[in-house]
Protein backbone atom coordinates (compact mmCIF):
# COMPACT_ATOMS: atom_id res chain seq x y z
CA UNK A 1 0.00 0.00 0.00
CA UNK A 2 1.38 3.39 -0.98
CA UNK A 3 0.84 6.58 1.04
CA UNK A 4 0.58 9.73 -1.09
CA UNK A 5 0.08 13.37 -0.25
CA UNK A 6 -0.92 16.26 -2.50
CA UNK A 7 -1.40 19.72 -1.05
CA UNK A 8 -0.62 23.39 -0.71
CA UNK A 9 0.19 25.35 2.44
CA UNK A 10 1.28 28.75 3.70
CA UNK A 11 4.86 27.78 2.85
CA UNK A 12 4.18 27.73 -0.88
CA UNK A 13 0.88 29.47 -1.61
CA UNK A 14 -0.38 32.99 -0.86
CA UNK A 15 -3.57 33.49 1.09
CA UNK A 16 -5.51 34.46 -2.10
CA UNK A 17 -4.87 30.97 -3.43
CA UNK A 18 -5.27 29.13 -0.10
CA UNK A 19 -8.67 30.67 0.55
CA UNK A 20 -9.98 29.38 -2.80
CA UNK A 21 -8.88 25.85 -2.02
CA UNK A 22 -9.97 25.91 1.64
CA UNK A 23 -12.94 23.65 2.33
CA UNK A 24 -15.31 23.35 5.28
CA UNK A 25 -15.13 20.02 7.08
CA UNK A 26 -18.14 18.40 5.38
CA UNK A 27 -16.96 19.31 1.87
CA UNK A 28 -13.42 18.15 2.69
CA UNK A 29 -14.85 14.81 3.83
CA UNK A 30 -16.95 14.41 0.68
CA UNK A 31 -13.91 15.21 -1.50
CA UNK A 32 -11.97 12.52 0.38
CA UNK A 33 -14.74 9.99 -0.22
CA UNK A 34 -14.83 10.82 -3.94
CA UNK A 35 -11.09 10.12 -4.13
CA UNK A 36 -11.39 6.67 -2.53
CA UNK A 37 -9.45 5.82 0.62
CA UNK A 38 -8.38 9.37 1.52
CA UNK A 39 -8.37 12.10 4.15
CA UNK A 40 -8.63 15.79 3.23
CA UNK A 41 -7.17 18.20 5.78
CA UNK A 42 -8.25 21.76 5.07
CA UNK A 43 -7.43 24.71 7.36
CA UNK A 44 -6.69 28.38 6.77
CA UNK A 45 -3.01 27.52 6.30
CA UNK A 46 -3.23 24.34 4.24
CA UNK A 47 -5.33 22.02 2.14
CA UNK A 48 -3.85 18.54 1.87
CA UNK A 49 -5.16 15.25 0.56
CA UNK A 50 -3.69 12.02 1.96
CA UNK A 51 -4.33 8.93 -0.15
CA UNK A 52 -3.85 5.24 0.51
CA UNK A 53 -2.85 3.78 -2.84
CA UNK A 54 -5.14 6.23 -4.66
CA UNK A 55 -4.72 8.30 -7.78
CA UNK A 56 -2.90 11.46 -6.76
CA UNK A 57 -3.38 13.15 -10.13
CA UNK A 58 -7.15 13.00 -9.50
CA UNK A 59 -6.57 14.62 -6.12
CA UNK A 60 -4.47 17.36 -7.70
CA UNK A 61 -7.11 17.89 -10.38
CA UNK A 62 -9.75 18.30 -7.67
CA UNK A 63 -7.66 20.95 -5.94
CA UNK A 64 -7.02 22.72 -9.25
CA UNK A 65 -10.73 22.75 -9.91
CA UNK A 66 -11.27 24.51 -6.59
CA UNK A 67 -8.41 26.94 -7.22
CA UNK A 68 -9.52 27.68 -10.75
CA UNK A 69 -5.93 27.51 -11.94
CA UNK A 70 -3.11 24.97 -12.35
CA UNK A 71 -1.35 24.14 -9.09
CA UNK A 72 1.54 22.07 -10.41
CA UNK A 73 4.02 24.86 -9.68
CA UNK A 74 3.05 25.27 -6.03
CA UNK A 75 1.51 21.98 -4.92
CA UNK A 76 3.73 19.48 -3.19
CA UNK A 77 3.53 15.74 -3.72
CA UNK A 78 5.05 13.45 -1.15
CA UNK A 79 5.07 9.69 -0.88
CA UNK A 80 5.36 6.97 1.72
CA UNK A 81 7.77 7.90 4.52
CA UNK A 82 8.07 11.53 3.40
CA UNK A 83 4.29 11.90 3.39
CA UNK A 84 4.01 10.29 6.82
CA UNK A 85 6.73 12.53 8.28
CA UNK A 86 4.92 15.56 6.86
CA UNK A 87 1.67 14.49 8.55
CA UNK A 88 3.54 13.86 11.82
CA UNK A 89 5.09 17.34 11.68
CA UNK A 90 1.72 18.90 10.89
CA UNK A 91 -0.04 17.27 13.84
CA UNK A 92 2.90 18.12 16.12
CA UNK A 93 2.45 21.78 15.16
CA UNK A 94 5.92 21.92 13.63
CA UNK A 95 4.67 22.91 10.19
CA UNK A 96 2.44 25.69 11.53
CA UNK A 97 2.95 29.43 11.08
CA UNK A 98 3.53 29.69 14.83
CA UNK A 99 5.39 26.54 15.87
CA UNK A 100 3.51 24.53 18.46
CA UNK A 101 0.06 26.09 18.00
CA UNK A 102 -2.48 23.67 19.35
CA UNK A 103 -5.44 24.17 17.01
CA UNK A 104 -3.99 22.04 14.23
CA UNK A 105 -4.18 18.83 16.26
CA UNK A 106 -7.94 19.23 16.62
CA UNK A 107 -8.21 19.98 12.90
CA UNK A 108 -6.29 16.81 11.99
CA UNK A 109 -8.55 14.79 14.28
CA UNK A 110 -11.70 16.36 12.78
CA UNK A 111 -10.52 15.65 9.22
CA UNK A 112 -9.70 12.05 10.15
CA UNK A 113 -13.02 11.49 11.94
CA UNK A 114 -14.98 13.00 9.06
CA UNK A 115 -13.22 10.96 6.37
CA UNK A 116 -13.36 7.60 8.17
CA UNK A 117 -10.55 6.09 6.07
CA UNK A 118 -9.52 2.45 5.61
CA UNK A 119 -7.12 0.52 7.87
CA UNK A 120 -3.90 1.86 6.32
CA UNK A 121 -4.71 5.57 6.68
CA UNK A 122 -6.44 4.82 9.98
CA UNK A 123 -3.14 3.49 11.35
CA UNK A 124 -1.11 6.44 9.99
CA UNK A 125 -3.50 9.10 11.28
CA UNK A 126 -3.83 7.48 14.71
CA UNK A 127 -0.06 7.46 14.93
CA UNK A 128 0.04 11.14 13.94
CA UNK A 129 -2.61 12.10 16.50
CA UNK A 130 -0.86 10.19 19.27
CA UNK A 131 2.39 11.91 18.35
CA UNK A 132 0.71 15.33 18.39
CA UNK A 133 -0.54 14.68 21.93
CA UNK A 134 2.84 13.33 23.01
CA UNK A 135 4.69 16.38 21.67
CA UNK A 136 2.43 18.68 23.64
CA UNK A 137 2.74 16.56 26.77
CA UNK A 138 6.50 16.02 26.68
CA UNK A 139 7.70 19.36 25.37
CA UNK A 140 6.80 22.94 26.27
CA UNK A 141 6.35 23.90 22.62
CA UNK A 142 2.79 25.13 23.04
CA UNK A 143 2.99 26.61 26.51
CA UNK A 144 4.29 30.10 25.87
CA UNK A 145 2.33 32.94 24.29
CA UNK A 146 3.23 33.90 20.74
CA UNK A 147 1.70 37.38 20.52
CA UNK A 148 1.77 40.64 22.51
CA UNK A 149 -1.88 40.36 23.72
CA UNK A 150 -1.34 36.73 24.79
CA UNK A 151 1.93 37.66 26.53
CA UNK A 152 0.18 40.48 28.41
CA UNK A 153 -2.48 38.09 29.66
CA UNK A 154 0.09 35.43 30.58
CA UNK A 155 2.07 38.02 32.57
CA UNK A 156 -1.07 39.07 34.43
CA UNK A 157 -1.45 35.40 35.36
CA UNK A 158 2.11 35.41 36.71
CA UNK A 159 0.99 38.07 39.17
CA UNK A 160 -2.54 36.93 40.02
CA UNK A 161 -2.69 33.26 39.05
CA UNK A 162 -6.28 32.61 38.07
CA UNK A 163 -7.68 35.76 36.45
CA UNK A 164 -11.30 34.87 37.22
CA UNK A 165 -12.85 37.79 39.03
CA UNK A 166 -9.91 40.14 38.41
CA UNK A 167 -11.04 43.57 37.25
CA UNK A 168 -9.50 45.34 34.28
CA UNK A 169 -9.46 49.01 33.36
CA UNK A 170 -9.01 49.42 29.61
CA UNK A 171 -7.70 52.86 28.66
CA UNK A 172 -8.19 53.46 24.93
CA UNK A 173 -10.64 51.78 22.58
CA UNK A 174 -8.27 50.95 19.71
CA UNK A 175 -7.89 47.61 17.98
CA UNK A 176 -4.75 46.42 19.80
CA UNK A 177 -6.23 47.35 23.19
CA UNK A 178 -9.39 45.46 22.31
CA UNK A 179 -7.35 42.39 21.34
CA UNK A 180 -5.38 42.47 24.59
CA UNK A 181 -8.57 42.99 26.59
CA UNK A 182 -10.11 40.03 24.74
CA UNK A 183 -7.12 37.91 25.69
CA UNK A 184 -7.54 38.85 29.37
CA UNK A 185 -11.28 38.30 29.17
CA UNK A 186 -10.77 34.86 27.61
CA UNK A 187 -8.76 33.92 30.70
CA UNK A 188 -11.58 34.90 33.01
CA UNK A 189 -10.79 38.55 33.82
CA UNK A 190 -13.67 41.03 33.87
CA UNK A 191 -13.28 44.19 31.83
CA UNK A 192 -14.76 46.56 34.41
CA UNK A 193 -14.14 49.98 32.86
CA UNK A 194 -13.34 51.35 29.41
CA UNK A 195 -11.92 54.87 29.32
CA UNK A 196 -11.58 56.62 25.99
CA UNK A 197 -11.13 60.11 24.58
CA UNK A 198 -14.11 59.60 22.26
CA UNK A 199 -17.09 58.71 24.48
CA UNK A 200 -18.97 57.01 21.61
CA UNK A 201 -16.16 54.57 20.75
CA UNK A 202 -15.52 53.95 24.46
CA UNK A 203 -19.20 53.23 25.11
CA UNK A 204 -19.40 50.87 22.12
CA UNK A 205 -16.39 48.85 23.29
CA UNK A 206 -17.61 48.90 26.90
CA UNK A 207 -20.94 47.48 25.75
CA UNK A 208 -19.12 44.68 23.93
CA UNK A 209 -17.33 43.64 27.15
CA UNK A 210 -20.23 44.41 29.49
CA UNK A 211 -18.09 47.14 31.09
CA UNK A 212 -18.75 50.67 32.30
CA UNK A 213 -17.62 53.49 30.02
CA UNK A 214 -15.76 56.29 31.81
CA UNK A 215 -13.86 59.37 30.71
CA UNK A 216 -10.06 59.64 30.65
CA UNK A 217 -10.33 62.06 33.57
CA UNK A 218 -11.85 59.30 35.71
CA UNK A 219 -8.89 56.96 35.23
CA UNK A 220 -6.97 57.91 38.45
CA UNK A 221 -10.12 57.44 40.52
CA UNK A 222 -10.69 53.97 39.09
CA UNK A 223 -7.16 52.71 39.79
CA UNK A 224 -8.15 51.68 43.31
CA UNK A 225 -10.99 49.52 41.98
CA UNK A 226 -9.08 47.34 39.53
CA UNK A 227 -6.27 44.78 39.42
CA UNK A 228 -5.06 45.27 35.85
CA UNK A 229 -4.69 48.48 33.86
CA UNK A 230 -4.43 48.04 30.10
CA UNK A 231 -3.37 51.29 28.43
CA UNK A 232 -3.46 51.58 24.65
CA UNK A 233 -4.35 55.14 23.62
CA UNK A 234 -2.89 57.38 20.95
CA UNK A 235 -2.25 60.17 23.48
CA UNK A 236 0.94 62.18 23.06
CA UNK A 237 2.01 61.94 26.72
CA UNK A 238 1.62 59.88 29.89
CA UNK A 239 -1.96 59.65 31.18
CA UNK A 240 -1.14 57.85 34.43
CA UNK A 241 1.56 59.09 36.77
CA UNK A 242 3.02 57.66 39.96
CA UNK A 243 0.96 60.13 41.99
CA UNK A 244 -2.28 58.73 40.57
CA UNK A 245 -1.73 55.28 42.07
CA UNK A 246 -3.41 54.79 45.46
CA UNK A 247 -0.75 54.42 48.14
CA UNK A 248 -2.43 51.96 50.50
CA UNK A 249 -3.28 48.84 48.55
CA UNK A 250 -3.33 45.26 49.80
CA UNK A 251 -3.29 43.76 46.31
CA UNK A 252 -0.85 44.09 43.40
CA UNK A 253 -1.63 46.38 40.49
CA UNK A 254 -0.46 45.27 37.06
CA UNK A 255 -0.01 47.82 34.28
CA UNK A 256 0.15 46.80 30.63
CA UNK A 257 1.16 49.78 28.52
CA UNK A 258 1.02 48.95 24.83
CA UNK A 259 0.76 52.57 23.68
CA UNK A 260 3.45 54.47 21.81
CA UNK A 261 4.11 57.10 23.15
CA UNK A 262 3.63 55.43 26.51
CA UNK A 263 0.48 56.12 28.55
CA UNK A 264 1.96 55.14 31.93
CA UNK A 265 4.84 56.99 33.58
CA UNK A 266 7.75 54.50 34.00
CA UNK A 267 8.01 55.67 37.65
CA UNK A 268 4.81 53.69 38.33
CA UNK A 269 6.78 50.46 37.89
CA UNK A 270 9.00 51.36 40.83
CA UNK A 271 6.08 51.62 43.28
CA UNK A 272 5.62 48.83 45.84
CA UNK A 273 3.20 46.22 44.53
CA UNK A 274 3.03 47.78 41.04
CA UNK A 275 4.28 45.94 37.95
CA UNK A 276 4.60 47.73 34.63
CA UNK A 277 5.25 46.22 31.21
CA UNK A 278 5.47 48.47 28.14
CA UNK A 279 5.37 47.39 24.48
CA UNK A 280 9.15 46.79 24.30
CA UNK A 281 9.04 44.59 27.40
CA UNK A 282 6.16 42.58 25.98
CA UNK A 283 7.85 42.17 22.61
CA UNK A 284 11.02 41.01 24.37
CA UNK A 285 8.96 38.43 26.28
CA UNK A 286 7.33 37.23 23.05
CA UNK A 287 10.72 36.99 21.29
CA UNK A 288 12.11 35.02 24.20
CA UNK A 289 9.16 32.64 24.31
CA UNK A 290 9.31 32.13 20.54
CA UNK A 291 12.99 31.26 20.80
CA UNK A 292 11.97 28.86 23.58
CA UNK A 293 9.42 27.34 21.21
CA UNK A 294 12.13 26.86 18.63
CA UNK A 295 14.30 25.08 21.20
CA UNK A 296 11.34 22.89 22.12
CA UNK A 297 10.70 22.33 18.41
CA UNK A 298 14.07 20.57 18.21
CA UNK A 299 12.92 18.13 20.87
CA UNK A 300 9.63 17.70 19.03
CA UNK A 301 11.54 16.94 15.80
CA UNK A 302 13.31 14.12 17.65
CA UNK A 303 9.94 12.64 18.59
CA UNK A 304 8.84 12.96 14.95
CA UNK A 305 12.00 11.13 13.85
CA UNK A 306 11.20 8.29 16.26
CA UNK A 307 7.68 7.98 14.88
CA UNK A 308 9.03 8.10 11.33
CA UNK A 309 11.24 5.13 12.15
CA UNK A 310 8.28 3.27 13.63
CA UNK A 311 6.25 4.02 10.49
CA UNK A 312 9.08 2.77 8.32
CA UNK A 313 9.33 -0.47 10.29
CA UNK A 314 5.58 -1.00 10.24
CA UNK A 315 5.35 -0.33 6.50
CA UNK A 316 8.30 -2.62 5.80
CA UNK A 317 6.68 -5.34 7.85
CA UNK A 318 3.63 -5.02 5.60
CA UNK A 319 5.86 -5.97 2.64
CA UNK A 320 7.03 -9.25 4.19
CA UNK A 321 3.88 -10.19 6.08
CA UNK A 322 2.26 -11.83 3.00
CA UNK A 323 5.43 -13.87 2.36
CA UNK A 324 5.59 -14.98 6.00
CA UNK A 325 1.90 -15.85 6.00
CA UNK A 326 2.28 -17.85 2.76
CA UNK A 327 5.31 -19.69 4.13
CA UNK A 328 3.49 -20.69 7.29
CA UNK A 329 0.37 -21.66 5.36
CA UNK A 330 2.44 -23.84 2.99
CA UNK A 331 4.23 -25.52 5.92
CA UNK A 332 0.95 -26.13 7.70
CA UNK A 333 -0.51 -27.58 4.51
CA UNK A 334 2.40 -30.03 4.18
CA UNK A 335 2.12 -31.00 7.83
CA UNK A 336 -1.62 -31.64 7.53
CA UNK A 337 -1.03 -33.68 4.37
CA UNK A 338 1.58 -35.90 6.02
CA UNK A 339 -0.58 -36.37 9.11
CA UNK A 340 -3.41 -37.53 6.91
CA UNK A 341 -1.15 -40.31 5.53
CA UNK A 342 -0.64 -41.80 8.96
CA UNK A 343 -2.41 -45.09 9.53
CA UNK A 344 -4.68 -45.97 12.40
CA UNK A 345 -3.53 -44.22 15.56
CA UNK A 346 -5.17 -43.95 18.91
CA UNK A 347 -6.51 -40.52 19.93
CA UNK A 348 -3.59 -40.04 22.34
CA UNK A 349 -1.02 -41.03 19.73
CA UNK A 350 -2.55 -38.66 17.15
CA UNK A 351 -2.52 -35.78 19.64
CA UNK A 352 1.14 -36.46 20.44
CA UNK A 353 2.17 -36.58 16.79
CA UNK A 354 0.23 -33.38 16.02
CA UNK A 355 1.81 -31.61 18.95
CA UNK A 356 5.35 -32.73 18.08
CA UNK A 357 5.05 -31.82 14.38
CA UNK A 358 3.52 -28.43 15.21
CA UNK A 359 6.42 -27.70 17.59
CA UNK A 360 8.99 -28.75 14.98
CA UNK A 361 7.30 -26.49 12.43
CA UNK A 362 7.20 -23.51 14.77
CA UNK A 363 10.83 -23.93 15.78
CA UNK A 364 11.94 -24.29 12.17
CA UNK A 365 10.01 -21.22 11.03
CA UNK A 366 10.68 -18.99 14.03
CA UNK A 367 14.14 -17.81 13.02
CA UNK A 368 13.32 -17.21 9.33
CA UNK A 369 10.23 -15.23 10.41
CA UNK A 370 12.23 -13.04 12.80
CA UNK A 371 15.03 -12.55 10.28
CA UNK A 372 12.59 -11.56 7.55
CA UNK A 373 10.94 -8.99 9.78
CA UNK A 374 14.33 -7.59 10.72
CA UNK A 375 15.48 -7.51 7.11
CA UNK A 376 12.24 -5.85 6.06
CA UNK A 377 13.39 -2.54 7.62
CA UNK A 378 16.61 -2.55 5.59
CA UNK A 379 17.14 -2.15 1.86
CA UNK A 380 17.17 -5.95 1.31
CA UNK A 381 13.71 -6.53 2.77
CA UNK A 382 11.96 -7.04 -0.57
CA UNK A 383 14.79 -9.29 -1.81
CA UNK A 384 14.46 -11.50 1.25
CA UNK A 385 10.71 -11.81 0.71
CA UNK A 386 11.31 -12.66 -2.95
CA UNK A 387 13.96 -15.26 -2.06
CA UNK A 388 11.62 -16.97 0.41
CA UNK A 389 8.84 -17.04 -2.15
CA UNK A 390 11.22 -18.51 -4.74
CA UNK A 391 12.92 -21.07 -2.46
CA UNK A 392 9.67 -22.44 -1.07
CA UNK A 393 7.71 -22.05 -4.29
CA UNK A 394 5.10 -19.95 -2.57
CA UNK A 395 3.80 -18.39 -5.78
CA UNK A 396 3.43 -21.77 -7.47
CA UNK A 397 0.34 -23.92 -7.39
CA UNK A 398 0.83 -26.80 -4.90
Amino acid at each position, binding site marked *: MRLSLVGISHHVAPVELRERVALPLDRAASLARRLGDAVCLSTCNRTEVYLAGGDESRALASLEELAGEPLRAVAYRLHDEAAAVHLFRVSAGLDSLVPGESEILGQVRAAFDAARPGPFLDRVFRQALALGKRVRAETAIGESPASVPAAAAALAQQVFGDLAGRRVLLVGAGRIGELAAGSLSARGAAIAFVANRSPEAGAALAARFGAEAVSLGDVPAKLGEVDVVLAATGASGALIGAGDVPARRR*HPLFFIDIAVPRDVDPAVGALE*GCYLYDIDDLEA*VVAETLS*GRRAEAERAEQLVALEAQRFKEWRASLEVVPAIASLRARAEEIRAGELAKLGALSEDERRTVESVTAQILNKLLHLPTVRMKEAAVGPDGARYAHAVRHLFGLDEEP
Partner: protein
Amino acid sequence: MAEAFFWPALVAYGEAALAYSSPRFSGLGTWGVRVGWLAQTALLALQAVRVDGFPWSSWAGSLNLFVWLVVGTYLIWGCRPRFRLLGLTVMPLAVVLFLAARIGGGTAVGERSHYGNVFLVLHVGLVLAAFAGFTLAAGLSGLYLVEERRLKRRAADILRLRLPSLVTLERLATRTIAVSLPLLTLGLVAGFVRLRDRGGGVDALMGATIAAWGVYAAFLALRPTGRTGAHLALAGFALVIVARVALAGSHF
Protein backbone atom coordinates in the same frame (compact mmCIF):
# COMPACT_ATOMS: atom_id res chain seq x y z
CA MET B 1 18.11 -3.18 59.06
CA ALA B 2 18.06 0.60 59.43
CA GLU B 3 20.73 0.79 56.73
CA ALA B 4 18.33 -0.81 54.27
CA PHE B 5 16.01 2.17 54.66
CA PHE B 6 18.45 4.98 55.37
CA TRP B 7 20.56 4.66 52.21
CA PRO B 8 17.66 4.34 49.75
CA ALA B 9 16.05 7.38 51.36
CA LEU B 10 19.27 9.39 51.18
CA VAL B 11 19.97 8.36 47.59
CA ALA B 12 16.39 9.16 46.53
CA TYR B 13 16.47 12.58 48.22
CA GLY B 14 19.85 13.26 46.61
CA GLU B 15 18.52 12.21 43.21
CA ALA B 16 15.54 14.56 43.69
CA ALA B 17 17.83 17.44 44.68
CA LEU B 18 19.84 16.94 41.47
CA ALA B 19 16.88 16.22 39.19
CA TYR B 20 15.04 19.39 40.20
CA SER B 21 17.90 21.45 38.77
CA SER B 22 16.68 20.66 35.25
CA PRO B 23 13.09 21.12 34.03
CA ARG B 24 13.50 18.04 31.86
CA PHE B 25 14.15 15.79 34.85
CA SER B 26 11.78 17.36 37.38
CA GLY B 27 9.44 14.37 36.98
CA LEU B 28 12.27 12.11 38.16
CA GLY B 29 12.79 14.51 41.05
CA THR B 30 9.20 14.04 42.14
CA TRP B 31 9.64 10.27 42.12
CA GLY B 32 12.83 10.66 44.14
CA VAL B 33 10.90 12.62 46.77
CA ARG B 34 8.17 9.98 46.91
CA VAL B 35 10.49 6.99 47.08
CA GLY B 36 12.79 8.68 49.61
CA TRP B 37 9.92 9.71 51.83
CA LEU B 38 8.50 6.18 51.83
CA ALA B 39 11.92 4.74 52.70
CA GLN B 40 12.34 7.27 55.51
CA THR B 41 8.83 6.50 56.74
CA ALA B 42 9.84 2.84 56.96
CA LEU B 43 12.99 3.85 58.86
CA LEU B 44 10.97 5.91 61.35
CA ALA B 45 8.45 3.09 61.77
CA LEU B 46 11.32 0.69 62.47
CA GLN B 47 12.77 3.11 65.03
CA ALA B 48 9.37 3.51 66.66
CA VAL B 49 8.87 -0.27 66.94
CA ARG B 50 12.31 -1.01 68.35
CA VAL B 51 12.63 1.74 70.95
CA ASP B 52 11.27 1.84 74.43
CA GLY B 53 9.76 5.31 74.73
CA PHE B 54 9.96 8.24 72.33
CA PRO B 55 12.38 7.27 69.53
CA TRP B 56 13.52 10.73 68.45
CA SER B 57 14.48 12.26 71.78
CA SER B 58 18.06 13.20 70.85
CA TRP B 59 18.81 16.28 68.74
CA ALA B 60 19.87 14.03 65.86
CA GLY B 61 16.76 11.88 66.18
CA SER B 62 14.54 14.93 66.17
CA LEU B 63 16.43 16.17 63.10
CA ASN B 64 15.57 12.90 61.36
CA LEU B 65 11.90 13.39 62.24
CA PHE B 66 12.10 17.03 61.17
CA VAL B 67 13.40 16.08 57.71
CA TRP B 68 10.57 13.58 57.33
CA LEU B 69 8.01 16.23 58.25
CA VAL B 70 9.53 18.81 55.89
CA VAL B 71 9.58 16.40 52.94
CA GLY B 72 6.10 15.13 53.85
CA THR B 73 4.70 18.66 53.89
CA TYR B 74 6.42 19.36 50.58
CA LEU B 75 4.93 16.18 49.13
CA ILE B 76 1.38 17.36 49.80
CA TRP B 77 1.45 19.98 47.06
CA GLY B 78 5.02 20.94 46.33
CA CYS B 79 5.75 18.28 43.72
CA ARG B 80 3.88 20.07 40.98
CA PRO B 81 6.09 21.23 38.08
CA ARG B 82 5.70 24.94 38.83
CA PHE B 83 7.06 24.42 42.34
CA ARG B 84 10.22 22.85 40.97
CA LEU B 85 12.36 25.67 42.35
CA LEU B 86 10.88 25.06 45.79
CA GLY B 87 12.12 21.48 45.52
CA LEU B 88 15.48 22.87 44.55
CA THR B 89 15.65 24.66 47.91
CA VAL B 90 13.92 22.04 50.07
CA MET B 91 15.55 18.83 48.85
CA PRO B 92 19.24 19.80 49.19
CA LEU B 93 18.42 21.07 52.69
CA ALA B 94 16.70 17.76 53.42
CA VAL B 95 19.76 15.81 52.23
CA VAL B 96 22.15 17.85 54.38
CA LEU B 97 19.98 17.62 57.50
CA PHE B 98 19.34 13.91 56.96
CA LEU B 99 23.09 13.31 56.74
CA ALA B 100 23.61 15.41 59.88
CA ALA B 101 20.97 13.30 61.63
CA ARG B 102 22.86 10.16 60.63
CA ILE B 103 26.22 11.51 61.78
CA GLY B 104 24.61 12.38 65.12
CA GLY B 105 23.21 8.84 65.45
CA GLY B 106 19.62 9.91 64.84
CA THR B 107 18.92 7.22 62.25
CA ALA B 108 20.04 4.27 64.36
CA VAL B 109 17.59 1.64 65.60
CA GLY B 110 17.08 0.16 69.05
CA GLU B 111 18.60 2.87 71.21
CA ARG B 112 17.03 3.28 74.57
CA SER B 113 15.09 6.50 74.96
CA HIS B 114 15.24 8.41 78.19
CA TYR B 115 11.92 10.06 77.37
CA GLY B 116 8.53 8.36 77.49
CA ASN B 117 6.32 11.14 78.67
CA VAL B 118 3.25 11.75 76.52
CA PHE B 119 3.59 15.48 76.96
CA LEU B 120 7.09 15.28 75.60
CA VAL B 121 5.94 13.25 72.61
CA LEU B 122 3.37 15.94 71.92
CA HIS B 123 5.91 18.68 72.55
CA VAL B 124 8.58 17.38 70.17
CA GLY B 125 6.11 16.17 67.53
CA LEU B 126 4.11 19.39 67.42
CA VAL B 127 7.12 21.72 67.51
CA LEU B 128 8.85 19.79 64.73
CA ALA B 129 5.68 19.70 62.62
CA ALA B 130 5.37 23.46 63.05
CA PHE B 131 9.03 23.97 62.14
CA ALA B 132 8.51 21.86 59.02
CA GLY B 133 5.60 24.09 58.05
CA PHE B 134 7.66 27.22 58.67
CA THR B 135 10.43 25.78 56.48
CA LEU B 136 7.98 25.36 53.63
CA ALA B 137 6.57 28.84 54.22
CA ALA B 138 10.10 30.23 54.06
CA GLY B 139 10.70 28.40 50.77
CA LEU B 140 7.49 29.88 49.37
CA SER B 141 8.43 33.35 50.58
CA GLY B 142 11.86 33.00 48.99
CA LEU B 143 10.22 32.02 45.72
CA TYR B 144 7.91 35.02 46.09
CA LEU B 145 10.87 37.38 46.36
CA VAL B 146 12.54 35.78 43.32
CA GLU B 147 9.40 36.02 41.20
CA GLU B 148 8.62 39.54 42.40
CA ARG B 149 12.11 40.67 41.47
CA ARG B 150 11.82 39.11 38.03
CA LEU B 151 8.51 40.88 37.44
CA LYS B 152 9.93 44.19 38.63
CA ARG B 153 12.96 43.79 36.39
CA ARG B 154 10.68 42.72 33.53
CA ALA B 155 12.81 39.68 32.81
CA ALA B 156 12.25 38.56 29.23
CA ASP B 157 12.44 34.88 30.19
CA ILE B 158 9.75 35.15 32.83
CA LEU B 159 7.30 33.02 30.86
CA ARG B 160 9.90 30.42 29.90
CA LEU B 161 10.95 29.66 33.45
CA ARG B 162 7.58 29.90 35.11
CA LEU B 163 7.05 30.00 38.82
CA PRO B 164 3.71 30.03 40.60
CA SER B 165 2.00 33.42 40.58
CA LEU B 166 2.74 36.00 43.29
CA VAL B 167 -0.76 35.76 44.69
CA THR B 168 -0.54 31.95 44.87
CA LEU B 169 2.82 32.00 46.62
CA GLU B 170 1.63 34.60 49.12
CA ARG B 171 -1.59 32.71 49.83
CA LEU B 172 0.17 29.36 50.30
CA ALA B 173 2.80 30.85 52.61
CA THR B 174 0.11 32.51 54.73
CA ARG B 175 -1.94 29.31 54.93
CA THR B 176 1.10 27.24 55.84
CA ILE B 177 1.96 29.65 58.66
CA ALA B 178 -1.68 29.74 59.77
CA VAL B 179 -1.63 25.95 60.15
CA SER B 180 1.85 25.77 61.67
CA LEU B 181 1.50 28.45 64.33
CA PRO B 182 -1.26 26.64 66.31
CA LEU B 183 0.92 23.50 66.21
CA LEU B 184 3.85 25.48 67.62
CA THR B 185 1.58 27.02 70.25
CA LEU B 186 0.35 23.59 71.40
CA GLY B 187 3.90 22.22 71.31
CA LEU B 188 5.13 25.09 73.48
CA VAL B 189 2.25 24.63 75.93
CA ALA B 190 3.12 20.91 76.22
CA GLY B 191 6.75 21.85 76.84
CA PHE B 192 5.85 24.36 79.50
CA VAL B 193 3.60 21.84 81.26
CA ARG B 194 6.55 19.45 81.47
CA LEU B 195 8.84 22.28 82.57
CA ARG B 196 6.44 23.15 85.38
CA ASP B 197 6.26 19.48 86.49
CA ARG B 198 9.98 18.86 86.46
CA GLY B 199 11.30 22.30 87.14
CA GLY B 200 13.99 24.10 85.16
CA GLY B 201 14.52 27.40 83.41
CA VAL B 202 14.12 28.80 79.94
CA ASP B 203 17.18 28.03 77.80
CA ALA B 204 18.44 29.77 74.65
CA LEU B 205 16.61 27.41 72.29
CA MET B 206 13.35 28.05 74.07
CA GLY B 207 14.00 31.77 73.86
CA ALA B 208 14.60 31.58 70.10
CA THR B 209 11.47 29.44 69.63
CA ILE B 210 9.35 31.89 71.58
CA ALA B 211 10.77 34.74 69.50
CA ALA B 212 9.88 32.82 66.32
CA TRP B 213 6.38 32.32 67.71
CA GLY B 214 6.14 36.07 68.23
CA VAL B 215 7.22 36.82 64.66
CA TYR B 216 4.72 34.40 63.15
CA ALA B 217 1.96 35.60 65.45
CA ALA B 218 2.68 39.13 64.28
CA PHE B 219 2.58 37.87 60.69
CA LEU B 220 -0.91 36.44 61.16
CA ALA B 221 -2.16 39.42 63.13
CA LEU B 222 -0.88 42.09 60.76
CA ARG B 223 -1.19 40.07 57.52
CA PRO B 224 1.50 42.08 55.74
CA THR B 225 1.40 41.65 51.95
CA GLY B 226 4.01 41.71 49.24
CA ARG B 227 7.70 41.87 50.02
CA THR B 228 7.09 42.90 53.63
CA GLY B 229 5.17 39.70 54.31
CA ALA B 230 7.83 37.58 52.60
CA HIS B 231 10.61 39.24 54.59
CA LEU B 232 8.73 38.70 57.86
CA ALA B 233 8.21 35.01 57.08
CA LEU B 234 11.93 34.66 56.33
CA ALA B 235 12.83 36.48 59.56
CA GLY B 236 10.74 33.96 61.49
CA PHE B 237 12.47 31.14 59.67
CA ALA B 238 15.89 32.54 60.58
CA LEU B 239 14.88 32.12 64.22
CA VAL B 240 13.68 28.58 63.48
CA ILE B 241 17.08 27.76 61.97
CA VAL B 242 18.84 29.22 64.99
CA ALA B 243 16.65 27.13 67.31
CA ARG B 244 16.80 23.98 65.19
CA VAL B 245 20.49 23.93 64.29
CA ALA B 246 22.60 26.36 66.30
CA LEU B 247 21.01 25.91 69.71
CA ALA B 248 19.82 22.28 69.48
CA GLY B 249 22.61 21.04 71.74
CA SER B 250 21.57 23.32 74.59
CA HIS B 251 18.09 21.82 74.91
CA PHE B 252 18.45 18.01 74.61
